[in-house]
């Protein structure tokens, strides 16, 4: 079953076409990785899908509903079933770790703070963090911030998780730990994952399919093995060679 469908999506920034009649379809429970050179439109694509950027043309369906024609309240309702892990974690500086994680419930519900803190601690444990709930974001390392960001995305039990460069700026060991965590979450919570990355190791380990974005379009898409065997695209070839060297 198709959970995300993007049809002829076009995004323009100050006369520059960033996404050019892009099409994409993601199945429920699938893990799709988008790769491509910097500035090719990968992040713009996921931000457009979740409604942070307005396209000039095209349609975006989430669970069969075209989100571009919906009123703001409906879009917010759909967003409550979506989680996003931002490139720089985007934790709220003025809130503690548990408040960051439980912010969705602190804002939208009348649950008590104690109850929400308990929920946040539980989700933090799920991402491998213990005893950090009262720390402020500036007291956390890059890898810990990323985990908190994942916990914040997870707390509302989303159906779809978007990751924007989840391993960028992390050392190889932390990066590998985050990749394992993403795999674990995908299996445990049965989420549909859309991941933007430059990290070919992560792409290979976690993806059901890999899409190559170039000049605002998805020019190649398929499983890692399919692309390795069939694709002649220079970027895919260089990714495959890089991965070969890593092995």
């Amino acid at each position, binding site marked *: 079953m198709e959970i995300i469908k993007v049809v002829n999506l076009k995004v323009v920034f100050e006369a520059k076409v960033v996404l050019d009649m892009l099409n994409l379809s993601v199945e429920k429970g699938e893990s799709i990785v988008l790769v491509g050179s910097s500035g090719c439109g990968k992040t713009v694509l996921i*931000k457009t899908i*979740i*409604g*942070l950027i307005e396209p000039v043309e095209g349609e975006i369906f989430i669970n069969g509903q075209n989100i571009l024609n919906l009123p*703001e309240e409906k879009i*917010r*309702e759909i*967003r*409550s079933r*979506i*989680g*996003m892990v*931002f*490139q*720089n974690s*985007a*934790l*709220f*500086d003025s809130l503690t770790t548990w408040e960051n994680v439980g*912010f*969705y419930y602190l*804002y*939208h519900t009348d649950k008590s703070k104690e109850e929400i803190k308990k929920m946040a601690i539980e989700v933090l444990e799920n991402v491998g963090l213990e005893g950090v709930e009262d720390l402020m974001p500036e007291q956390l390392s890059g890898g810990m911030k990323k985990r908190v960001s994942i916990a*914040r*995305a997870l707390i509302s039990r989303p159906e779809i998780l978007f990751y924007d460069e989840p391993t960028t700026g992390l050392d190889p060991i932390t990066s590998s730990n985050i990749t394992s965590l993403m795999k674990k979450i995908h299996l445990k919570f049965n989420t549909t994952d859309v991941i933007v990355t430059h990290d070919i190791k992560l792409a290979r380990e976690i993806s059901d399919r890999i899409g190559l974005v170039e000049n605002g379009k998805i020019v190649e898409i398929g499983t890692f093995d399919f692309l390795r065997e069939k694709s002649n695209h220079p970027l895919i070839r260089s990714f495959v060679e890089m991965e070969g060297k890593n092995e």
Partner: protein
Amino acid sequence: MKNFIENFGKKIVAPVYYFGSLILLIGNSLKKAFTERKRENILKHIEEIGINSLPLVGVIAIFTGMILVMEIGHTLKAFGAETYSGALVGLSMARELGPVLVALTLAGRVGASIAAEIGVMKITEQIDALKVLAIDPVSYLISPRVIAGIFSLPALFVISFFLAIGGAFLIGVFLIKIPSGQFLYQSFRFISYKDFLVGFIKVIVFAIVVINVSSYEGLKAKGGAEGVGDASTSAVVKSFFLIILTNLILTGIFYFV
């Protein structure tokens, strides 16, 4: 020629776009100020906008009162009318100077900080994170500050009025030698309820303008640290301009229409 026309067009459209967007933001923030159910941030913002501004507003008000009476009293003394110094200080602080000084202090102290805070949140994707959590940034960041400003500025205005009279009293009585009873009597003699009402309306309008202008500049911030710096500067400059412009319009409406 095409470039010239394009650039000229952009220069015309930019301010229209700016004012249009600002008016929409003001409408949106006011609407959400009265409909939003989460109000826990308001006390924090009242502390920031009102209580923390009090020392600076107070000192500026005292000094302004002193300066006014030095200038006015000295001039009026030549005509033997120095006892009216207090009346001029009282009237100008209630109708014009008081509201404007409070608003300019707010723009310089709080406006820059709002623009910087929201600008950093924009650049570090915290604003996007709010939206993904189904939280409207206007409801969460701007409306509570607007409410805090609407409560804080009238209080600051009243305090600054009395402190300015106090500063003027010290100079008038001890330096210019105006009898203290006469000075106080004249200070309040010509002020009507309307003058105070207009002062209140002005500070409330200024609070709404300054907080929305500063928030808007923060929400528009781009790039890195430089973008945040530009947003802060722009917030202060545009707030100053709009305070003076709004004051002109309100004075015209209340005293000349």
